[in-house]
């Protein structure tokens, strides 16, 4: 990587030094995110252990079709983003922009399906664990806790999605200003790490919400 022609912030010795530092910073940030979601998953699994029937009753009310489509959408989105990264490594800015745009649109699609359609259905079916919660009887308590996790988990994941979409949008804008080249594409790497992490969270959420305890 020819470095002399690239600028870098004053605290670094070279552009490469800066780039590697930025990437290690993102990895460390992801470590904190793992612990953040880790606490959620731990609580989720622990609560399920004590309220298994209620959780299963809750899981059966979720919309498996939307959940599965969203999983495909999200994985496709980060796959395509990674393809964009491969393109910019070869210096192809036009392809990078196209890939990011598709990844961005897929992300928006996920949000529409998740919050515009699935959540609205859930609310209309009184699955929000409020006063008029739909599931009553002996399983009601456990099912309520399931839906606490469902709404909190998807909301926090959704916020991360929105953050990721802002970042992907930022990459598109910078790429349109022709700021990236085969020499300099660190922000694409950093955002790519984050965008893939958002997937990883979903890959754990998906079975926890839709699959475990659903039964045949």
């Amino acid at each position, binding site marked *: 990587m020819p470095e002399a022609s690239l600028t870098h912030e004053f605290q670094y010795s070279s552009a490469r030094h800066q780039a590697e530092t930025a990437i290690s910073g993102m990895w460390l940030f992801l470590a*904190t995110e793992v612990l953040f979601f880790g606490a959620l998953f731990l609580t989720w699994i622990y609560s399920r252990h004590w309220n298994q029937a209620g959780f299963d009753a809750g899981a059966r009310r979720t919309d498996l079709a939307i959940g599965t489509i969203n999983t495909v959408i999200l994985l496709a989105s980060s796959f395509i983003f990674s393809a964009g990264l491969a393109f910019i490594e070869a210096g192809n800015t036009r392809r990078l922009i196209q890939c990011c745009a598709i990844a961005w649109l897929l992300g928006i699609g996920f949000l529409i399906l998740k919050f515009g359609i699935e959540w609205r259905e859930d609310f209309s079916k009184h699955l929000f664990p409020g006063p008029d919660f739909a599931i009553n009887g002996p399983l009601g308590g456990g099912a*309520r806790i399931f839906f606490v996790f469902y709404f909190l988990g998807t909301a926090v994941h959704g916020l991360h999605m929105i953050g990721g979409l802002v970042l992907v949008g930022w990459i598109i804008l910078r790429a349109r200003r022709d700021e990236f080249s085969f020499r300099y594409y660190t922000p694409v790497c950093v955002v790519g790490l984050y965008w893939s992490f958002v997937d990883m969270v979903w890959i754990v959420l998906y079975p926890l919400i839709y699959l475990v305890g659903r039964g045949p």
Partner: protein
Amino acid sequence: MSEVVIETPGAAASYLANGVTLRSWLLTTDHKRIAVLYFGTITFFFFIGGGAAALLRYNLILPQGMIGSAETYNRLFTLHGVVMVWFFLVPAVPVTLGNFLVPLMLGARDLAFPKLNLLSWYLFVAAGFVVLYALFAGGVDTGWTFYTPLTSAYTNGHVVATAVAIIVAGFSSIATGLNFIVTIHRLRAPGMTWYRMPVFLWSLYATSVILVLATPVLAMTLLLLAFERIFHIGVFDPSLGGDPLLFQHLFWFYSHPAVYIMILPGFGVISEIVPAFSSKRLFGYKFVVWASMAIAVISFLVWGHHMFVAGTSLYSALVFSILSFMVAVPSAIKVFNWIGTMHKGFIRFDAPMLYAIGFIGLFTTGGLTGLFVAALAADVHLTQTYFVVAHFHYVMVGGMVSAYFAGLHFWWPKITGRMYPEMWGRAGAVIIFIGFNLTFFPQFILGYLGMPRRYHSYPPEFEVLNVLSSAGATILAMGYLLPLGYLTWSLFYGERASANPWNATGLEWQTASPPLTDNFVSTPTVTEPPYNYPPPEVVHRHA
């Protein structure tokens, strides 16, 4: 490195002279200026939390309580705990001395992510406003531990606002910890190998690991708590199918490592000061370094000792008890190493050293009494009593706050370019030491005799010890107001400091006081191990 730098008055190049407008401070990304912003902020919170503590001690002068209601008392001790833990103790050394010194000690020009550093200050201030709102809107009466279902179902305090404030302050801590770890990995000057780093950097590294890995767990826990409280659903509420012990596990998974977040940077400060004022190499450098790392690791494995009487199984309690005893080993290694450093040293009793020596004694007392409460049988008697309060304050106030003051005096000339008045500094250290012991030693006895904590009234037979404790608190308060006075005075009238007034090693002493905006004229190269002080005999002959 180059002595030439030191001789130039350098007022124009100093970081303090680089712009005097409000904007030049509020939009700065200079780690030194951000440290100064943090100094102001946490001093403010220190006196808010301290004011609440003063009212608590005022109330306890009489057995029936001097303040009208138990409710007010509950709100005051919660305020004291929340403000002191999250808005003073956790951030104190890292965000002030750490922000200022990490790049200087590494020979770097700034932290790896200066903008993130500024963001962390804004997050902290935002969190501060929210917590002040919660305070003025009526406060919280649950104690800083927020145990469910009291917090989620019963109390009428401002739990959600306080939880939000703590979550936001937590993100601020994460940003700082992340910045330190990456900076220490990536921005060491040429020749600054890991084992040439001052112990202060090692202990901040260990602290940052805990900050980065434990804080997000607290954020999620408080999020669940807030969710539960707003929507009346029970993840932690047993009447709704939840588990209150789960909350305690998660809370202490953060909050026990958090006490090491508070004390580890203090260890780092003391490890700098003791060699400097003994004119001796730090005894057993690698042991001190790895003791810090060991504490960081073991700290994640001991949280269960907060729940010995909460209904956990005997076997898990046994394991947690043994693990808790294990933390004493690296802590004791440090104490022995500091004393080994002083042994046959040429000791100067300047204010930083007085604070440091006070720290060693008070921390040792606090640490050893920690073993009492880590023992299962003793804990059944001592838990929830003033014994625990005294133990905790010996480590946190006697230990950590002393270390903070030690470091503040030690690096004050470097930060401000002015010397503090030495006699006042020594007087402050002695007054704080006396006031502290008078405040908290009686609490060990009170706890042993069975006085429970968190009550606004008590049986009359405890009156004498409580009055002693409150009298001590008055002295302690004076001891804390004193530095506020003379340090502020020294900002304007203090003697100008030379680059290295203590003849200390370390890169931060090889640039001007106050440092240049760019820290160093040219990137330093490190060729020596840390604490390369001359043998004491040599100093003695020249002194």
